[in-house]
């Protein structure tokens, strides 16, 4: 037999890779988080706070009890929904930075539906409103998708710009046609709707807490996205287009259509997140009193981080979103406990992002070092010219390729 040695080498190489991926996969972002928290501790200490006390408050605030954990799930829900959408887009090699705009579009359309049909039965109104949210977000994703697929417009730029368009549109609508007219008559000119029909409230799952149906919707959507990507022909083609447009086109796929679908689906998830944000809000209304970002809580951006944290795998994005939700909830507790400035909390989550995103590079660097000093080096591949190129434009996946759980 020719090349048996090579095959043995590749088997062992592959087994090593698989084990490394299984064990190291979740370990890498966790290590990165710990590293970020250590740097954060130095910052807390520099501002005159006690890091140990601060972090204890943070952990207790996020995961210390049922009500704390419930808050965490509420924060995690929009991150999860946006993150799942990001997984779909990034698998198609489409970078969707338009989560903010898609959340807003979903929130607006679902609110319009509820305002128009306030007396519809709960069993019909809530699903209808959620669908409207998904449709709103989908439209917002469809536009940059078409521009990207048929006019080669860079989707990063178009999605970011549409965030701004959506933000102003929301402010216009909430100060104008959708404003709470009773409040205006009472002299309060606030950019928000009236209290929405109680038939559209997302049911609370746990007695006195804020935990609502949203997190379940998020988990179901994540599982659905997993099935879509790895169990359906459409998902296969979306991933194929992400892997190589040329090979996909040559195999007879409709590449442009898949790009549009990936961005539309991605927007749909964010739009659903927007609807969930509205119907699970404490005030039960859509409000931009403190600006568009006050409504979205920047979930459109943080969701990207959650997805990267989860290795762009919808199922891993579930724990990743909960971890990030916890970080956001806990950060407030930290701030209260050690009395440090609010920006520090923002800086802390920023640090985590930087560490997680750069951990991919760190892993590669460590592997390279290992090769130089023969610690678990991978065997020579001795590949030919054309075999070495390709797949270069695949998005960065911090915790590896995460094919199937």
């Amino acid at each position: 037999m020719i090349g048996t040695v090579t095959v043995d080498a590749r088997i062992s190489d592959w087994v090593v890779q698989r084990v490394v991926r299984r064990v190291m996969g979740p370990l890498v972002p966790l290590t990165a988080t710990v590293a970020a928290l250590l740097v954060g501790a130095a910052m807390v200490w520099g501002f005159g706070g006690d890091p140990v006390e601060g972090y204890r408050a943070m952990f207790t605030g996020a995961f210390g009890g049922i009500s704390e954990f419930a808050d965490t799930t509420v924060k995690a829900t929009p991150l999860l929904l946006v993150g799942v959408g990001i997984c779909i887009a990034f698998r198609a090699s489409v970078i969707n930075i338009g989560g903010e705009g898609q959340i807003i579009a979903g929130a607006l359309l679902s609110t319009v539906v509820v305002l128009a049909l306030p007396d519809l039965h709960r069993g019909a109104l809530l699903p209808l409103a959620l669908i409207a949210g998904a449709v709103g977000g989908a439209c917002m994703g469809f536009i940059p998708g078409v521009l990207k697929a048929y006019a080669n417009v860079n989707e990063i730029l178009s999605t970011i710009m549409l965030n701004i368009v959506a933000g102003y549109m929301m402010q216009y609508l909430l100060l104008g046609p959708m404003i709470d007219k009773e409040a205006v008559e009472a002299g309060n000119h606030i950019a928000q709707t009236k209290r929405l029909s109680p038939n559209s409230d997302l049911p609370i799952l746990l007695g006195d807490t804020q935990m609502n149906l949203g997190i379940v919707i998020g988990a179901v959507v994540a599982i659905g996205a997993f099935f879509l990507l790895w169990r359906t022909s459409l998902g296969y083609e979306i991933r194929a287009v992400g892997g190589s447009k040329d090979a996909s086109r040559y195999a007879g796929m409709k590449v442009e259509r898949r790009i549009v679908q990936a961005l539309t689906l991605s927007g749909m998830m964010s739009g659903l997140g927007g609807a969930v944000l509205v119907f699970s809000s404490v005030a039960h209304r859509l409000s931009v009193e403190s600006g568009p970002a006050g409504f979205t809580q920047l979930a459109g951006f943080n969701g990207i981080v959650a997805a990267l944290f989860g290795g762009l795998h919808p199922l891993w994005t579930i724990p990743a979103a909960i971890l990030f939700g916890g970080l956001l909830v806990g950060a407030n507790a930290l701030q209260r406990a050690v009395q440090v400035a609010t920006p520090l909390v923002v800086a802390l989550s920023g640090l985590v992002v930087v560490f997680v995103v750069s951990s991919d590079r760190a892993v590669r660097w460590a592997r390279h070092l290992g090769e130089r000093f023969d610690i678990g080096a991978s065997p020579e591949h001795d590949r030919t010219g054309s075999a070495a190129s390709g797949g270069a434009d695949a998005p960065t996946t911090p915790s590896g390729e995460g094919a199937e759980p």
Partner: protein
Amino acid sequence: MSAAPPLLEMRGITKRFPGVLANDAVDFNLEAGEVHTLLGENGAGKSTLMKILYGMYRAEAGEVFLRGQRVVIDSPSAAIEHGIGMIHQHFMLVPPLTVTENVALGLQSSRRPLTDLPTVANRIRELSETYGLRVNPDAPLWQLAVGERQRVEILKALYREATVLVMDEPTAVLTPQEVDELIVVLRRMAADGRGLVFISHKLHEVMAVSDRITVLRDGRVTGETTPANTDRAELARLMVGRPVQMVPDRPDVQPGEPLLEVTDLHVLSDRGDEAVAGMSFGVRAGEILGLAGVSGNGQSELAQAIAGLRPVQEGSVLIDGNDVTGQHPRRVRDAGLSYVPEERMRDGVIGMFSVAENLVLLNQGTEFSRRGFLRLGAMREHCRDLVERFAVKTPHIDVPTSNLSGGNIQKLILARELSAEPKVILAAQPTRGVDVGAAEYIHNRLVAQKAAGCATLLISEDLDEVLALSDRIGVMYEGRMMGVLDRAEATVERLGLWMAGVAGGAA
């Protein structure tokens, strides 16, 4: 010892990677003034040995001697200090910089901290004069063709006064003419007392350029010989470990109906000029039409236009009588075309997909899905069967395709394309960068397909391949068909003239 020690001697080099012995007590020596070829299949350990020499890997055992002195080379910079130069398969050059700047890169200038580029440029001119390495020192690198870039790499090594020069598959990127030129340059450098290590698996080049040949297989030296004392068949046997059939048996098949008809085809290149300027030909059932020609004469554009990947300006493409001109690739496939693309990693497979996923690239949406859901069980069964039938060497069908060797990726593509039961096969450079064993296999498969009644268009720059497989041979030059000959009438001389654009003979 009476004789002078060799320029370079590597003794008992052993290098182990997890699960594989890449070099097993390899002895290798190089005399000044010789071109010594390291021959072997992909993964035989040639590159590992040279990477050890260049300080990129550390050997577990073995010693390296330069002119009889034991040396320890633990980094590429140490290798350069010892006068060892390496020309990698993938060039290490900076496109926006000029040739001179690229050569000077990383060296200390005599006028530190200022640069001294005119001196460098003059030395480059001298060197290119001496060795016949034509290149303009002031040209920015991105303007240069692949062959010229390689000359810059060689100049870089010469500028650093390398006495031992390692060239890792230098001919893989060159046209036949450029290969001939390179061989002249190599001979000249050797005549100057340098020692050259030439890594290749192309047997005719090895026979043409080498003073000595060392063959590696599975990390061990299986033979050392000289071109005078061997032939290609023996070298192939040493590489593969069994006799290799260099030319497949060509069954006599009576050609049938024309299945592929191309009429007055005009196609533009990416730059917008006419790459295919009125090609007409037909391929009949049970026939292989070989299309030879130097690369860049419109072959890629022709193949893409037939496959529906590039718009057609004028003319028509008929597959089994169906007009598929300018149709979506899907329609062309449905009409009966299978395509083995030239850029296999870009067009043929999706690198990050598993072997199984790539095997169903064409039919996952039809044969292997039910109501939009993939039939994973049926898919896997089908893939295991194909991997078996087409001898794709992979540990598992879930391995990422980019982990496979070039030859095995090509077999994977062949498995997928041929199992679609095509009427017409379009094979573009099917064995480029593929090792001897896999090439033999691919050739036999294509011949078997011909016996099954397929019409095959074989586009290849490898004239030996075209001559070995084809029933008729055409030559493409500047987008036109110079002429078509029956295999019996075709000679290398006649085809060579056509490839150079000299008309004459049968049309």
